[in-house]
């Protein structure tokens, strides 16, 4: 998993080399970039859209857009961060577009986390997936970028193109909604209160 220090660093030399080759007209070099970052891009799309088919389509489209905009990549940020930003914004647009359509959830298709602990509880996982899926697009994006991409608030702000204070508000409201939709925290929380 990428930590924040890794995200803050400038683009990887290998990524920059691929960009240079692409801009020089070597289109097939881009396939290497896709190979390097496909898991991250697809992971974000899958979390945002909760549907593997739509996630694949969005991930493909994100790479196509990245390819078209490659000349604007200045290498000041990590390539992965840049791709995640493109993917997240694309997914927000898609979520807005399909808002009135019935949702198809991904919970039965996601890979299982390690056994043990309450995270492995199927009901709990189902609830979390459903609760996150029902968040408004920007709230969901903030949660995904914060908890799965481990972005700082300023990175989320840059990725979503919203002010830092709005990031705080989105996360606070998203968590409030999640808290109200998930079952009350059990023994551990009770212990903390008592």
């Amino acid at each position, binding site marked *: 998993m990428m930590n924040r220090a890794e995200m803050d660093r400038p683009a990887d030399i290998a990524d920059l080399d691929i960009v240079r080759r692409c801009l020089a007209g070597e289109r097939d070099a881009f*396939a290497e970039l896709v190979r390097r970052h496909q898991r991250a891009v697809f992971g974000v799309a899958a979390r945002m859209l909760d549907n593997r088919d739509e996630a694949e389509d969005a991930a493909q489209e994100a790479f196509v857009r990245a390819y078209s905009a490659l000349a604007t990549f200045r290498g000041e940020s990590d390539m992965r961060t840049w791709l995640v930003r493109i993917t997240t914004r694309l997914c927000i647009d898609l979520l807005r577009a399909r808002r009135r359509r019935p949702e198809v959830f991904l919970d039965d298709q996601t890979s299982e986390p390690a056994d043990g602990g309450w995270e492995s509880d199927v009901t709990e996982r189902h609830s979390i997936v459903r609760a996150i899926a029902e968040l408004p697009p920007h709230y969901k994006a903030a949660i995904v970028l914060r908890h799965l991409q481990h972005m700082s608030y300023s990175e989320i702000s840059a990725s979503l193109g919203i002010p830092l204070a709005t990031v705080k508000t989105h996360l606070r409201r998203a968590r409030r909604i999640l808290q109200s939709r998930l079952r009350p925290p059990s023994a551990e929380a009770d212990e903390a209160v008592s």
Partner: protein
Amino acid sequence: MNSLHHWLDCRFVRGALSAYIDGEAAAAGARIEAHLTGCAACRGLAHALRLQARAIEAFPAEEDPPAGFVSRVMDRIGAAEAETAPAAPAVRTLRLAPAAALAAVTVVIALAFWVIVSRGPAPVIPPIQHPPTVAQEQERAPKRIAQNTPHLVPAPAPALAGVGKPAPNQPVSGPTAPKAPPAQEYRDLGRSYEDEGQLDDALKEYAAARDRGGSELARVDVARVYEKTGRTADALDELMQVAFAEVDDQRWEPLSVD
């Protein structure tokens, strides 16, 4: 801490808790930690938010796409290039046919001319009623303290000391005007008055802090003095404004928000 203060502190902490557990509330960290030590309910909420974060982070951040993903992306890029040849990712350039460029320039010039002509003569700006200058404020505060509590402050109030006194004819607005004392200084001055039982003066200073964009705490100060002077309705009014500001920020917002 009385129940009103505790309630207000809870509201503050609950508003900041989300950023706090993310390590993004450094400025309020000490206050939040102090509150959590003594408030089981907020401590429980913090714990629940941490559990929630842990549950979300249990999902994989990365995931393998279906087999053949890379080739499908490249096919799509190929198709897009075929549609919009010449090939991306060329640096974007603006290419206009000479006739189109000439037409665009003509339209811009015509628009600019229309804007200039349609403006008419420059409007007359009415004189601005300036608020009291910093110097006036500076003189006012120590004088009042000296009059009301001569045993206390013979010198200028420390909170306002150090602010340059403008020349008599110096303008008070515009980019070169000296900055007004920050709201916190009015709060400090109000606290001095309040500690000495000069509640009317304290109220004026707290109100000045509130009106100068001070935090919600300035409003709470005003409410407290109202409460002390028996103006319960006014105190409630101030507190309601604090409460509604917070509620508005945290209210339940279903799917319509994005």
